[in-house]
């Protein structure tokens, strides 16, 4: 949902499909700028599509062989930034002794007509193509969220058939979206600030399943649309 300065509509948590596409368009433009790897996938012969990004993620080898819960629950867990490891002079020794397993995560941002909000789908596999089990995916949920996700009254992280591709994916169930979107929407409206629904939403749900959304997405260039709500990129304006 995008609202312009001066509008007084109560901030709805729901997103119409057109606004979904506009938000994605701005999001993708920024991704291009910072080379964040997102792309738009159009379903041939339809006007449906989704955003997609593939990430390679190093994890400790023990992750795949056994679930070493203690190592995954370390709240000071080092980020998956491989570059940082390279700079650490001890990492050179480590690399010889311990080869990280690498997981491949593929994230899709779809629009749900029934919920009228975006939904995050993803699939995960080892590099040799073995799909991760639900248990393995669970153990890779960020510790900040894991406990509470597991307390959900019904399955939060489920295996679903991808609505457009028909392949098995994991999905973060969207029915609580309103609870974390509404406060942000209300806040932006109260302060007459523009916001990009997809940026806000993905910044919340992404890290749960190890998808990083860089801070620069929050910059005004990604958020603004002209008052006429045009899809013409030349109309994209910047707020101060």
């Amino acid at each position, binding site marked *: 949902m995008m609202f312009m300065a001066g509008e007084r509509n109560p901030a709805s948590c729901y997103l119409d499909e057109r606004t979904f596409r506009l938000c994605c368009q701005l999001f993708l433009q920024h991704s291009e700028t910072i080379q964040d790897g997102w792309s738009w996938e159009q379903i041939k012969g339809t006007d449906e599509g989704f955003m997609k990004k593939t990430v390679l993620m190093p994890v400790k080898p023990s992750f795949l062989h056994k679930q070493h819960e203690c190592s995954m629950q370390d*709240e000071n867990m080092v980020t998956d930034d491989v570059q940082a490891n390279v700079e650490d002079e001890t990492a050179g020794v480590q690399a010889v002794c311990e080869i990280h397993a690498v997981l491949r995560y593929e994230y899709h941002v779809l629009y749900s007509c029934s919920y009228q909000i975006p939904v995050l789908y993803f699939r995960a596999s080892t590099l040799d193509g073995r799909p991760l089990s639900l248990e393995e995916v669970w153990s890779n949920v960020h510790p900040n969220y894991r406990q509470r996700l597991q*307390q959900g009254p019904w399955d939060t992280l489920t295996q679903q058939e991808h609505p457009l591709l028909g392949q098995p994916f994991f999905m973060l169930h969207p029915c*609580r979206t309103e609870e974390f979107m509404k406060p942000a929407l209300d806040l*932006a409206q109260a302060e007459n600030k523009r916001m990009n629904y997809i940026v806000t939403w993905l910044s919340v749900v992404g890290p749960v399943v190890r998808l990083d959304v860089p801070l620069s997405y929050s910059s005004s260039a990604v958020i603004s649309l002209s008052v006429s709500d045009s899809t013409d990129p030349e109309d994209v304006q910047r707020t101060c």
Partner: protein
Amino acid sequence: MSDNAESPTETQKDDPSIQHAATEHTGASDEKKKIDVLLKAVGDAPIMKTKKWSVERGRTVQSLAQFISRFLKLEASEQLFIYVNQSFAPSPDQEVGVLFECFGSDGKLVLHYCKSQAWG
């Protein structure tokens, strides 16, 4: 410095890196190992009696979220969400010092927070 905060003396002892921010700054360069954070509730989140905190730069968002959750005595099933720049949720691994560099103004970082029942 206000002392009418509920409870948190216990949590404060556990978290020396998060302290009440002095209402008067002695000016300066107590070298910015700590940054000032102003916590604002949104939605129906409980309002913290002490809103201004000094936090070590290296503290992560996750760590700060845990602190706030304990301070507010959230239930185990409740998830705290933190927003920077009003509508962006920083990664739990992000350091508050970085957020301060990007979004701080008037010498402080404003963070909004809300809570939600279990996911699903």
